[in-house]
């Protein structure tokens, strides 16, 4: 009898709890700017579907707690609970990574490949599809977005807490920044 009451109580409790944790309605609101499944069709805005969970979690929490400057996202994530952020990171990490290879001139690609080999390869891989566990994929990410993000790393106006990334971005020559962004943007799977 006690057992029955307990399971009944559990059943009653779990229905609304599960509903409250359903992240898809919230995840769907991200599609407006980042595309369905986190596949952006717009060059200034990153694709986020398929990025590593650890990376997505970390940046969203850094924005939320004022440790990292963003342009728009740091305002948006402050309205989400830590649990929602974790669930969003898990949701988007589960989506397939869809590279959008963007054409670039041969000379730019060669220059970008050299810069990527010198500076980016260690954490992101030479074609950007083999990153460290908490580093983002770069293959077929939008080059315009990558360049804007690198400008933030190179500027003193933005709080960018990843020291290794900051140093790497600042050590690059301005030409190499743009070439590396285009090189990674040109990569496919």
């Amino acid at each position: 009898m006690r057992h029955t009451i307990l399971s009944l109580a559990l059943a009653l409790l779990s229905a609304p709890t599960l509903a409250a944790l359903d992240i898809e309605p919230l995840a769907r609101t991200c599609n407006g700017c980042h595309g369905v499944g986190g596949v952006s069709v717009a060059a200034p805005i990153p694709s986020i579907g398929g990025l590593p969970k650890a990376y997505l979690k970390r940046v969203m929490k850094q924005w939320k707690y004022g440790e990292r400057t963003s342009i728009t996202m740091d305002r948006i994530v402050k309205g989400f609970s830590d649990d929602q952020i974790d669930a969003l990171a898990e949701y988007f990490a589960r989506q397939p990574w869809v590279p959008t290879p963007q054409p670039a001139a041969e000379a730019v690609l060669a220059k970008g490949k050299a810069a990527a080999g010198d500076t980016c390869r260690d954490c992101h891989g030479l074609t950007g599809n083999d990153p460290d566990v908490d580093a983002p994929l770069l293959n077929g990410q939008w080059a315009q977005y990558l360049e804007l993000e690198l400008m933030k790393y190179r500027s003193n106006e933005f709080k960018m807490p990843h020291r290794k990334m900051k140093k790497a971005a600042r050590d690059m020559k301005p030409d190499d920044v743009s070439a590396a962004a285009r090189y990674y943007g040109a990569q496919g799977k």
Partner: protein
Amino acid sequence: MDPIDRRSFLKSLTAATGAAFLCIPAARAAQPKARVVVVGGGFGGASVAKYLRLLDAGIEVTLVERATRYTSCPLSNEVISHSRDIQSLQTGYERLARRGVRIVHGEVVGVDPAGKKVSLADGKSLDYDALVVSPGVDFNYGAVAGLTPEISETRLPHAWKAGAQTLLLRKQLAAMPDGGRFIIAVPKGPFRCPPGPYERAAQVAMYCKHHGKKKAKVLILDANDSFSKRPLFEQAWKELYGYGPNGMIEWVAGASGGAVEEVDADAMTCRTTFDEFKADVLNVIPPHHAGKIAKTAGLVNSGVWCAVRPDNMESTAHKDIYVIGDACAGGDLASNNPFPKSAHMANSQAKVVAASLVAKLNGLPPPVPVYTNTCYSVVAHDWGFSVVHLYRVEGNTWVYVKEGSGISPVTIGSGKDAKPVSRLHRKIEAQYAAGWLDNLMTDAFG
């Protein structure tokens, strides 16, 4: 079904691809599980049609829209300033059709909520199990003496629905002499795109500054006493174009007699409570109300707008009819944070309706609604900013979530330590604006 089964069913149902339901055999698909009719093919209507099909391809979705092409209002001020081609804001309905949305190009002239039927101008009718009305706004021309739809179309464009009037205003701006006066008459709110008139002022000033019209004036005659993103606009106007009686842009508040009451298209003048102003270009935006069909259908029950339920946007006037987009009155009215009438807001409301309808039609528990808005304004090629909004529903009322809302920073830090926001920040935001539009258009129409 125990709760766990329901949960996994719901998850497969809401998978981004909707793959689970694309497998329904054709014989079963021929007998839809429900018929949903969507009236109006703007951001709201297109988004709800798409998401219904994404979440459950067993639902038959019919979208009724007069036009075969849609022109986005967001960023159409860049067309006026010759910074953007209008084609870049246009899309058709082919991609929605490929998703299985039945597209009917026609006009809904009547709604029978009891018989669950809409009638079209060509005499045909459509039965529905659920109806989504997303009619946008219509204009109250009678509120401004001397203004008629014909005068707006030919001489004093409002250009508040992107299209022919946007192009007319663009032509008028190009033809304006140096030293000319461009007047923007802003109606009493709420109106579509709250930051729109002020972004337009900046875009017009940008055009004048770079096209040999440095002595031009942009005069905003406003029926309201404040406006959206005001500190950001005033900062940018001042820095880029000069703001105030000696600057290129000047703003007259409603309390200072800014409300335009009468226009004379022959004399090119407009009259406010206190003054008469002569213009070279007269951009008069009339007050708005919910699109005509909302009134015909008996859905207008909150002033000139349609009241809806917070959990699923269902009309409070009629069951099984949902009103989304600019025509609805929603949001946290208690804290004076209503839903802004924006494309992104309509897109977000559409997703709430789609998820709620799909759950209901499949006998599943209602999803937890969340409403978001992100809206960018571009005041120069390299200067943009935005506002974000987040609303939750608690105890069947909307709650504006302040922590997840707000405008771009005006300064970094505040008080004595305040530093200006870097130009790089503003430049990145101008680029995000263009990207936001492309992704939002694709999320709705793609």
